[in-house]
């Protein structure tokens, strides 16, 4: 079972060069749960994830992991606790699945040492969880988008961290693969207690898979909490500017957003 951590950000303002995207955001990541950041394009969800994952330095504010400021933790040690899967990782040409997944072991490896028994076990386990063992010796470039995404997640799993951040892990995937990836991540959370924080575009899938939702708007957190408490037609109107009606997902009983649009707003049945 994964260790529980307190992972907090306090009053962070962050962005890129001369563009401030996050304004004074404070957030407390629920340990051993699945959290999802939602919000319109450019609202800062990805920036927040990157700032907490130490890929971007905040202009001000403090992020602490178990009470320690994250910029005081040596990078390799931090990487043993938190894994991060970027939105579009770069695929090196001609590398095999095993070797790529194995690169996730870097934070645990000693200087100039080869693979240990532990490394082999961690890689094998990660590949089993993601169902990619059969592709072990295949080259990444021969795999489909969904298979590739499983390889990347396996790489992050081989890192064996208690916390896993994923920046839009389902974007560009067919709906079948989106559900498959989210199911696998849920397995991971239920089985090992891995704390998962991710950015998703699909609100309905977010509502179904998340234990906790952070809704962002203009670089600030508008609402957070359980999906059934947070997602309402008013919130969707506020953060996306979209008129909608919220019903119950017939499968999972989670909130389900149905957009209205200009051509169907005479139908008043649901509102």
């Amino acid at each position, binding site marked *: 079972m994964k260790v529980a951590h307190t992972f907090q950000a306090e009053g962070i303002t962050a962005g890129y060069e001369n563009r401030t995207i996050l304004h004074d955001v404070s957030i407390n990541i629920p340990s051993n749960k699945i959290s999802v950041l939602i919000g319109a394009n450019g609202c800062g969800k990805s920036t927040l994830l990157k700032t907490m994952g130490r890929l971007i330095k905040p202009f001000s504010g403090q992020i602490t992991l178990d009470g320690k400021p994250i910029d005081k933790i040596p990078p390799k040690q931090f990487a043993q606790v938190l894994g991060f899967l970027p939105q579009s*990782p*770069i695929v090196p*040409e*001609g590398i095999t699945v095993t070797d790529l997944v194995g690169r996730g072991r870097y934070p645990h490896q000693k*200087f100039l040492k080869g693979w240990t028994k532990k490394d082999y*076990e961690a*890689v094998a386990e990660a590949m089993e969880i993601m169902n990619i063992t059969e592709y*072990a010796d295949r080259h990444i470039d021969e795999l489909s988008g969904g298979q590739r995404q499983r390889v990347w997640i396996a790489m992050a799993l081989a890192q064996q961290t208690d916390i896993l951040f994923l920046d839009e892990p389902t974007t560009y995937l067919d709906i079948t693969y989106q559900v498959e990836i989210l199911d696998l991540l849920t397995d991971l959370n239920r089985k090992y207690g891995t704390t998962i924080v991710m950015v998703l575009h699909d609100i309905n899938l977010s509502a179904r898979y998340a234990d906790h939702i952070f809704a962002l708007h203009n670089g600030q957190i508008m609402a957070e909490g359980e999906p059934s408490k947070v997602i309402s037609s008013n919130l969707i109107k506020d953060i996306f500017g979209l008129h909608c009606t919220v019903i119950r997902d017939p499968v999972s009983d989670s909130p389900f957003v149905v957009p209205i649009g200009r051509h169907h707003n005479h139908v008043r049945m649901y509102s």
Partner: protein
Amino acid sequence: MNESVNLIRVGRIKRRRRYIIVTSILAIIAFVLCCAMLMLGNTIYPVDDVLRVLLGEEVKGASFAIGTIRLPRMLAGVFAGFAFGVGGYVFQTMLRNPLANPNVIGITAGSSAAAVFSIIVLHASYAVVSIASVIGGLATVIVIFLLSRGTSFSIGRLILIGIGIQAMLNAVISYLLLIGQQHDIPTAMRWLSGSLNGSKMETLYPLIVVVLIFAPIIIASEKRLELLDLGEQTATSLGVHTDKTRIVLLTSSVIILALATATTGPIAFVAFLSGPIANRLVGIGFSNIIPSGLVGIILVLASDLVGQFAFVARYPVGVITGILGAPYLIYLLYRMNRKGNL
């Protein structure tokens, strides 16, 4: 679980074995070429004469030919070839593009220009020439990176800017050679395409020392170089100090490249060809720094032997490597243009 461990272990051992076998074969070929460099010439000396000279015995005729001419020539080829191979591989891997190598983007030209300037204009000593070539190489890297920063960094732009800078620097070299004295003209070839002619023991030491210091630093960073290949964000999230790693790798590579250039001239295309050849032979997954260095040695020594003995006239090594490299450059440009990722 155990089954999967075995499965991935078998695959990895197979690839590791291929790495070791290919690297050993490359090392053997390089060694054979070293011996050939010492044995062949106007007079062909047998192995035991060569050995006796190397052990410090005085052998009539052979001592001069081998000790003073062939040995420095061979060592210059070995160290420069290794430096070009390793430096080229680091650039190509770090920038994830085979075109992004010191020959094409003008870093060796920067070193050459600085070296030619200090020879022709400043009449500087060899030590100053070496230092100037290092500074020239580093300055070129910095200028290229600054110019290609713009609003958003792109490797395609970096390469195009590099090609432009290289053309400018080559113009500077040609100009300097023109205003230089008549008797400097034969050296012109050396600074335009590189040559092992006239290598002397005393001018080799800086290159040898620098390669012995910086090549291990580069080899020790190989894991981090592999991770940089996954992109900035993935590397950072795995705990790599990406900026620090890049600076260490770039500086070390530029220093060995610059001294190799100051010693033999910019032997055309060796830095460009070695990495792709090594990757093709070994496969990707293990860092191919050492195989690239060995391929560099083989390219330089083999081309030098061909240039010396295959034709009626003698050609400097850079002419031969140029003949090998140019078609590959055209092929690569053609392929990348079709894929649209230049």
